[in-house]
């Protein structure tokens, strides 16, 4: 049993993976259980402050989700983003109905959340939010990465999907 306990996910127990450690859990979001992964780059420096950062990230999932959807809506027309192809499919499926990026972003389902609370020189990423359209496979996940300190960034299409 870890001495470090998150308000949201309970005791922090890392799997001791190579180069760090990770923990799989889940959160409740809009009434649904969403998989949550916590990746720690420096397990030996893990402390209360890092756990507090994890809880802060989970506390503000609504806010992060809102920012992520705004970022997706703003990027659907940019060729090469991971949102471009799903948006094109979604638009085609609508037939005569007008396509609206905000509506598209709102229609997405949060599939997974990943938190990287302690980062490192090569990892400024702190949170990843991964979406897909409802009733579709995870073939074309849409991922928004939140970097320190530059904020949200819509991933390019060639990034290896994390779902």
């Amino acid at each position: 049993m870890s001495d470090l306990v998150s308000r949201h996910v309970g005791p922090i127990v890392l799997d001791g993976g190579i180069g760090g450690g990770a923990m799989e859990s889940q959160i409740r979001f809009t009434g649904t259980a969403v998989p949550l992964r916590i990746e720690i780059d420096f397990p030996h420096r893990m402390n209360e402050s890092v756990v507090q950062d994890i809880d802060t990230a989970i506390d503000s999932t609504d806010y992060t989700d809102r920012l992520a959807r705004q970022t997706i809506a703003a990027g659907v027309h940019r060729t090469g983003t991971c949102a471009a192809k799903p948006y094109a499919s979604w638009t085609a499926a609508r037939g005569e109905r007008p396509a609206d990026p905000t509506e598209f972003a709102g229609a997405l389902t949060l599939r997974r959340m990943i938190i990287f609370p302690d980062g490192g020189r090569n990892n400024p990423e702190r949170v990843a939010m991964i979406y897909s359209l409802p009733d579709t496979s995870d073939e074309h996940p849409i991922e928004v990465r939140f970097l320190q300190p530059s904020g949200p960034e819509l991933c390019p299409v060639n990034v290896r999907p994390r779902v």
Partner: protein
Amino acid sequence: MSDYDDLGGLVARMKKAAIDCYMAEDGFNPHWNDNQKYAKWGWAYHHYARPDANGEGGGSPLTATTTLEAQGSVAPRFDEIRSTIDTILTGWDTLPSGALCRAPQSSANAATALLGGAASVATVNDSDEIVRATETAMASLNDLAGSFVGPVYDKYCAQLLTVTQNLGTVYTILEAQYAAQQAMWPAAREDVVAICTSAAAAWEGRAAEIAAGARQDSFTVVAAVAGAVATVATAGVGTAATVGAVGAFASTTVSTLSSLDASGGHVSGDTYAEILASLVGALGALNETIAAQELELNRWLDETLNAMSTQLADYNLDAFTLADFSAGDGSSSINRTDTDMITTAMGRVEGALSEALRAAGAPPVSNPTPRPHAIGVGLAGTHLAASGVYDYANQCLQSTAAEYTRGRGLFDAAVADYFNTDAESQLKVTTLLSQEALIAEMGGRG
């Protein structure tokens, strides 16, 4: 407006940078979309108000989450950081400019120019008036014979040249001291600006590196600060070199000043607190450099005063005692042409001494480099030592001028009496000698 005149603006930048750094170490960066506030990681929903452009305010929580409620405001911590910086910089924001040293430096230079004795100093345009007139008198004295010739030659020619040239050197030392002070403080001001700029840049750079995700690793940004703060050493040696250039004759002092170790400004560390400690260390090193130079100047001035008081006759003609001179066989050989030349030449010397006394003026009434007591060797700096030498040199010059005037009068009287009886002349010489034995006014210093 110089950079130092805008130190307040730089201090404001330091405060904001220090707080940015402090917050970055806790994972808070300026919000990616609103730089008026900090956000966890630059974007998460955990915000605090950021200080304004002047580094003031900030610290209040702007979001309400369970975590935030537990943590509360960080404004008190921001106040503490600002107060710490203010305390560290106390006194460094009110350094003297050195400009008040310009007048005494100029006066000392003018006195030296008239007295001579420091021809090797580039800043002095020696008039040679006293030397040339005295040499004229000496040449004419050689043509005379009489009991008073020897004493007049010895005291009012040979010793006079020793005294005036020594006094000229003393005024040159004073000129160098005021020149050093005049050069040192603008350099110190520049160093303060450089140190503060480096500290601000270190905090800014540190915050930026942390923001770039380098939180867990070591940093090199502070090494750059060490390079910038090394200007302390540069300025220290530079200031010493200024002293050296002006007072090139004081080779020991110059050597001592030039070898001052002003490398205490070395900076190391990679956290907000360590950069703060480095700032304290750099200012401490600067202070040590200033103090060391002032101590050296004070030592130099003290030695000068000591030399004057222990060898007073070489600095004050009135303190010179004539050796025993034989009255000879009582015969005299004097012609009017020679005595006229001598008295005219002595008149020129008399005028030059009087002019030198006027040119020397007086030392500054108050310290021309006022500073907080914690900076340099103390509140007085070199003011007391310099004023002591200055006053004493003026007294010596005044007594010398008065004594010379008296000597010239005696010479004239002796010459006038020659044409009546040589016994009268001998009487005058006897009078002169007996007066010399008294060494009246300047028996000791002070």
